[in-house]
């Protein structure tokens, strides 16, 4: 399959359509779920879709090292390439690697300013024209709306779309009347798109909670995380 065809057929086009053109530059989208449900897989699929569109992605992680993030990208890319019988595998793989930078931070102290400085240095001094930033593993329970505002400002300043993952703890699984997890309640003004990942017996359902100004969102995405491939897929 050719790249253009693959992009057109990607289930992420459904996500964009259902959310009125997606998160959009300068905005923040959040994927919320309990630990181990598949947030990283979804974020990496979203990022890979951008990379296949020749866009540039910065992946911010708070893991102990970056090698397993690279492994995630390799796995998801391989899965997509095999599933859709992608032409020019090597060329597209090399291009994707070139257009992706992983930034790893320790989450303590003045993390937010360090992340902000790092991204700014990469985009401005490093001349890396990022289209999307993925922030995986950020601890909302230890952060404040003011700190989150820094990310929103950065997204606007650099005109970049940002995706976060948010871990909802098992013992803190409560939501407000609109379905927003309480842990994200104080951050909701700066979240454009909020998707809750709900584990079912055979798959993980991607439930749209906030769609820009519409809370609760009117439409459902009809998307799932396929547990076999760890890719986002249409619900059958």
């Amino acid at each position, binding site marked *: 399959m050719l790249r253009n065809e693959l992009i057109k057929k990607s289930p992420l086009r459904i996500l964009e359509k259902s959310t009125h053109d997606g998160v959009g530059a300068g905005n923040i989208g959040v994927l919320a779920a309990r630990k181990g449900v598949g947030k990283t897989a979804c974020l990496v699929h979203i990022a890979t879709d951008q990379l296949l569109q020749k866009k540039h992605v910065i992946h911010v992680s708070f893991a*102990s*090292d*970056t*090698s397993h*993030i*690279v492994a995630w990208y390799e796995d998801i890319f391989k899965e997509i390439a095999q599933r859709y019988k992608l032409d020019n595998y090597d060329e597209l793989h*090399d291009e994707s*690697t*070139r257009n992706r*930078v*992983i*930034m*790893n*931070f*320790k989450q303590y102290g003045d993390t937010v300013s*360090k992340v902000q*400085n*790092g991204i*700014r*240095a*990469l985009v*401005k*001094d*490093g*001349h*890396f024209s990022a289209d999307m930033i993925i922030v995986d593993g950020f601890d909302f329970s230890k952060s404040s709306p003011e700190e989150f505002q820094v990310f929103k400002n950065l997204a606007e300043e650099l005109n970049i779309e940002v995706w976060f993952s948010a871990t909802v703890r098992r013992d803190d699984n409560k939501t407000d009347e609109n379905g927003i997890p309480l842990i994200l309640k104080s951050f909701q003004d700066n979240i454009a798109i909020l998707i809750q990942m709900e584990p079912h017996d055979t798959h993980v359902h991607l439930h749209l909670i906030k769609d820009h100004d519409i809370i609760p969102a009117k439409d459902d995405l009809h998307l799932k995380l396929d547990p076999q491939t760890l890719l986002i897929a249409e619900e059958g």
Partner: protein
Amino acid sequence: MAYNIKKMRNIGISAHIDSGKTTLTERILFYSNKIHAIHEVKGKDGVGATMDSMELERERGITIASAATNVSWREHPINVIDTPGHVDFTIEVERALRVLDGAVLVLCSVGGVQSQSITVDRQLKRYNVPRLAFINKSDRSGANPYRVTQQLRDKLGHNAVLMQIPIGLEDKHEGVVDLITMKAVYFDGPSGEIIREDEIPEHLIDEANEKHEELLDAVSLYSDELAESYLEGNATVEQIRDAVRKGTLSLDLTPVFIGSAYKNKGIQLLLDGVVNYLPSPDEIDTKALDMSNNEEPVQLYPVEDKPAVALAFKLEDGQYGQLTYIRIYQGTVKKGLELTNTRSGKRFKVGRLIRMHSNSMEDIDEANAGDIVALFGIDCASGDTFTEKGLNLTMTTMYVPEPVISLAISPKDKKSADNMSKALNRFGKEDPTFRSYVDLESNETIIKGMGELHLDVYIERMKREYKVDIETGMPQVAYRETVGTSARFDYTHKKQSGGSGQYGRVAGTLEPNTEGDYEFVDQIKGGVIPSEFISSCDKGFKSCLAKGKIIGFPVVGVKVTIDDGAFHAVDSSDVAFQLAAIGGFWQAFEKAKPEILEPIMKVTVETPSEFQGNVLGSINQRRGIIIATNEEGAFTIVEAEVPLSEMFGYSTVLRSLTQGKAEFTMEFLKYSKVPTNISEQLKKEHLEEKKSESKKK
């Protein structure tokens, strides 16, 4: 000391640049009474560390050549090899690890697992070398041995187990708590030579108990006896040590020691660890290949009464002739013993037998299995196997990476030319990653090596040691040529100019080969090319690989299949088919979208975070791909892939961008296609060069 192989240890000291390997080795020599005063690397006394015997090493404060010495610790003879950290001298680490039985992986308490620690660890794994980790520089600001231990687990996948915890860190680093004996250990006296055991300080008791439990949990897996005693609550020191030893020897466990070599803390306990946990030569499974029996593996026995088998792993040409370092794997090597070099078949008698201590030496009469010694006056190459009594065995040799950078050099006068030739001959013999040859087209002498520093050091040595007055050109990248697609060839070589003619026709396919540099496939059916000429075709194709047609660099990654051809009963010959193959190769090469490949380096820059923007910008300017950035305290570590051609002079640029506060390392990663604009530029330069050469002629 009487020979007892069970007490012998052969260890290497390996690590990232500036982790303190040479400083640690200096302490090992001091505490084992080999030297009587400590001298520092780049010390103010102008003496320099004992193991950095070369003038250049002392000036630059780096280890260039690995140096061997031997010490004795608690009646255990230990051969120690201090290896360089800089990746340009990686062959020194390779060959040391090839012959060593165990290693101490030194890590900086602040820097942690750095890029070269990862490279060294890969080398240790390649030769299955059991290792201890020593977390050095615990006296430094920002020292955190716990973080480094976690990095050993996360980044290197080691089952790292703390043998000690520090008593104080940074400027309060006083000593360690030994988690096996559960005693505090301090290092008193002007040079830390007096070991004082005491009770664990009160504020560390809980932590020590917790880490002691962790240690027992981790190591009881390796000993049923310990597991039983542990459950009953009466595990003994001997049982724990025995279990640590088993885990270490099986490469499942990395015992972690803590200290500060510079401040003389923790070294004696590390030496105890070497004798307690690292293997003796008779615990290593060593096999050789029997050259008389289809290279079947043959078990070697590290005993005195078997015929001797030894491996020459390092050569040095000194004022008394060639010095050959050998590791004896079986039998005894004595003065006067007749040995055979398996590769050349040449026999020789052992003359002077030497035990090395850095650059000084001690004559000995014999050395036994397991030992590392040196021979004088033997003509051999690095990696040769010596055997006794008609054994036709060879040891597997070490991994030798291909050089990636070259430099044209020319002597200024006749005397320099003679001396340069002597120097190149010696360096080539000593270091398999250093090559030299005369380019017949330009008549220039070209030297090739692993990096700018590597070539710099040899040029400096030529100037100093051989008094060569020399001019150097610009460093050149070792490009490669390959094909991007498959193409057919059908070529007839036909010549009739009196006498017997030449005739040969070959047809087939040239295509990219991801499996290796060159593959030849014979699919000739019906004898259209007689079988005696098939190897001629192979020979013809192979001869094309040395120099490509785009910019004159070697051709790699190609597969040639022949499936058709023709011959003439009288005019076909070996030469005719070789020439037909050459014609066919170039015919297809031009059609098969030929490409230029360039070496890509894995570059790691450690910079204060305030300068990360400058560093990222400098990598971007150099066609680099930033793979990742890692925040480590006030530092950012940038990992990138950058073409070698863009990295010349980077150390100067980095220094000015970061006020000299950033450091970088780089090593060869892969060959990758050159972008079209650069490829066109290279082609243009090649063409101009050829034109100017033909004008000269």
